[in-house]
């Protein structure tokens, strides 16, 4: 036998390796027969063979024995997994808090002011009880409390996330995120030195004051009468810029009045904007009411989205206007592109470029207005979209875009996409979570944008959320495709089903009147499924009660036939 051990005591003995392979049934039949025959005749090899078999059994027995009970940590693992679901209530509370804040500032407070102006401020019992401080120290303190609670919720969730990442050993991700936070923390003091953050009920930069660097103002009322050598960021209810700002003015305010000089741009989202000062560069604004006084001057262009827009001042370049009612009495040196219901051009107006207006009614132009050319009017007709041929062309283009988008994402994230498609069938959970995500995420992201540090996070979240709404439709499409063509776990067949499904989904969204609601429903449904998949990615997968102690009998069946 060629596998005999080169042992000085007996060169005919079997090698231990051969014996191991024999008892583990790793030898072919001929070799096994040779070993068996040898072991029958050789006492020493037979003894070694049996010892090794006993060794195998001893090993198996030693490993299988339940010498330790299942740790309590593992027994509680499922329960903790279930309890960990409770974080969603924290998020819900946080989102609710921010929602309440948004509702208050957007709707309750303006009506409250109107009521007060109308003389009902102190006579309404509700107003008296809630807003006048009979039971509350002050509504502002409640708002502050809501802000704090919302931020604490977000902070607590972040901490839990980091803790889990670290526990699970995903150190790379945790390190990246922690490093990001560390860099942010380190950079904050450095940038803070060039920034002036002012937070108070009322903030004022007096006319004799000069601020070097950017100014961030969080206040109920703000007056900028001095000089700011940098940008001004306003988060206020009532803001007034009467001084000199060498940079840009970026404002989120209910009321914004600019009577001073702004060397840069104005970018604002306000309820009411009044410009009587001078802006060297451009103005981009979203308002309900925008009023550019005769003394107001914009050196660059104006882009305005408003309900009512009055332009009495001068605009150095072009004007792009989206307003229900636009009244032009001032000067526009460039061209005007306007869209809305009505456009009135008064006699004092002077326009240096062409005027294009798309609206419901023809523009009302005073005869003595000084225009470079008569306005070109296009009547806006609200016939059903599907009556136009281009509608179907665009539908095909959109369909192709959806398919391409889905194809890329299904290829990039096949496992995640399959999970999301599986989750779509959990109708209640998906739809409910979809509603929460659809409305809650943008609110939370916008709130995050208010904070300086959260601006990037907020914008990134908004972008992801928006992309996710399109992804949601492809996910639902994949499920519809599976209903028709059968289930699959393979990526390409799933993509094929997604294509079929998305065609059907898009066709249903074209149904007049109902199509919009179908599209909304599909989006909510799919967004919920995606959110569920994301949630499960970060959660232990178990549910139910603590595990019983019944073990799985392991499967060790080691050992070959004992030679005779």
């Amino acid at each position: 036998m060629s596998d005999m051990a080169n042992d000085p005591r007996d060169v005919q003995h079997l090698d231990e390796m051969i014996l191991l392979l024999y008892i583990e049934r790793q030898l072919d039949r001929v070799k096994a027969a040779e070993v068996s025959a040898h072991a029958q005749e050789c006492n020493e090899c037979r003894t070694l063979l049996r010892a090794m078999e006993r060794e195998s059994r001893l090993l198996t027995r030693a490993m299988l024995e339940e010498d330790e009970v299942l740790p309590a940590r593992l027994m509680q693992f499922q329960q903790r997994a279930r309890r960990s679901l409770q974080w969603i209530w924290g998020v819900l509370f946080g989102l609710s808090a921010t929602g309440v804040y948004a509702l208050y500032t957007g709707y309750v407070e303006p009506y409250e002011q109107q009521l007060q102006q109308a003389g009902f401020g102190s006579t309404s019992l509700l107003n008296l009880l809630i807003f006048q401080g009979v039971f509350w120290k002050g509504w502002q303190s409640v708002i502050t409390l809501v802000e704090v609670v919302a931020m604490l919720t977000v902070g607590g969730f972040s901490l839990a996330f980091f803790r889990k990442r670290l526990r699970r050993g995903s150190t790379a991700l945790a390190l990246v995120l922690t490093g990001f936070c560390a860099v942010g923390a380190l950079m904050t003091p450095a940038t803070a030195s060039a920034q002036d953050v002012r937070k108070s009920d009322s903030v004022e930069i007096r006319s004799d004051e000069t601020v070097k660097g950017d100014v961030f103002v969080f206040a109920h009322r703000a007056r900028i009468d001095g000089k700011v050598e940098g940008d001004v960021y306003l988060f206020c209810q009532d803001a007034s810029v009467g001084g000199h700002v060498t940079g840009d003015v970026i404002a989120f305010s209910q009321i914004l009045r600019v009577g001073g000089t702004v060397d840069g741009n104005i970018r604002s989202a306000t309820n009411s904007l009044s410009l009587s000062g001078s802006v060297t560069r451009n103005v981009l604004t979203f308002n309900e009411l925008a009023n550019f006084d005769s003394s107001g001057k914009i050196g660059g262009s104006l882009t305005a989205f408003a309900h009512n827009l009055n332009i009495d001042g001068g605009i150095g370049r072009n004007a792009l206007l989206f307003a229900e009612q636009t009244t032009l009495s001032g000067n526009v040196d460039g061209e005007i592109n306007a869209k809305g219901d009505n456009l009135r051009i008064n006699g004092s107006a002077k326009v240096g470029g062409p005027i294009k207006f798309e609206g419901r009614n023809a523009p009302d132009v005073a005869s003595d207005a000084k225009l470079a050319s008569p306005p070109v009017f296009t009547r806006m007709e609200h016939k059903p979209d599907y009556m136009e041929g281009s509608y179907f062309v665009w539908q095909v283009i959109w369909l192709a875009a959806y398919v391409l988008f889905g194809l890329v994402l299904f290829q990039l994230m096949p496992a995640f996409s399959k999970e999301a498609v599986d989750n779509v069938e959990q109708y209640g959970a998906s739809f409910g979570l979809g509603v929460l995500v659809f409305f809650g995420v943008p609110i939370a992201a916008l709130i995050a944008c208010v904070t300086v540090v959260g601006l990037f996070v907020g914008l990134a979240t908004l972008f992801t959320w928006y992309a996710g709404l399109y992804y949601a439709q492809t996910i639902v499409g994949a499920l519809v495709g599976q209903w028709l063509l059968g289930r699959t776990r393979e990526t390409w067949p799933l993509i094929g089903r997604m294509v079929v499904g998305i065609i059907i989904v898009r066709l249903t969204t074209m149904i007049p009147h109902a199509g919009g609601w179908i599209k909304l429903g599909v989006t909510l449904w799919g967004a919920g499924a995606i959110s569920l998949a994301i949630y499960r990615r970060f959660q232990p997968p178990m549910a139910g009660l603590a595990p019983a102690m019944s073990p799985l009998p392991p499967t060790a069946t080691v050992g070959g036939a004992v030679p005779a």
Partner: protein
Amino acid sequence: MSAPGITEPTEAIARARAGDGDAWGELYREYAPAMFRFCRRALPTREDAEDATMEIFMKLRDKLVQYDETRSFSAWLYKVAANHCWDLLRRRKIRQDKETEDVETVPLEHPDPNQLDRMIEQSTSDEVRKALGKLGARARMALVMRYYSDMSYDEIADALGVRRAFVGVVLLRARHELRQALGEPGAMAAGGAL
């Protein structure tokens, strides 16, 4: 490699694949104790085993779509667990190349059959478990894969990243280390501890 006489919870597996949380609970109750014991044998500390057990079950959720239902679930489960544990050990600076070199170059002494028989006779399960804790990572991992979860040589080779023909050598080498640890209580095995 399926467990003889054990009916696998195919219904629960199917429901878990569809995202049913309760089904996951059933699977966890069924398999967690065995998975923990597997990790306990393969990894150096109890805390490591607890962490690894939870991580394996979290990983299983992602991988369940890859499970071939025509095969044994427990076998697949052990394969995932073995890969996870070995990855953990390798991340802890296990010098696999050096170990391979050691195994290939150091000759194994032919045992005295009667002496081995006596040692096996006198050794208790508890002593074997303690001796296992003294083995090198790969030796211990190989023994656990083979004698606890009954993985095939192909699966062991795949998990450890060695040639199939080399698996027998790894196992025999591990047995020698174990015998040394059993014969010399408190002594470190040749492969080195973690």
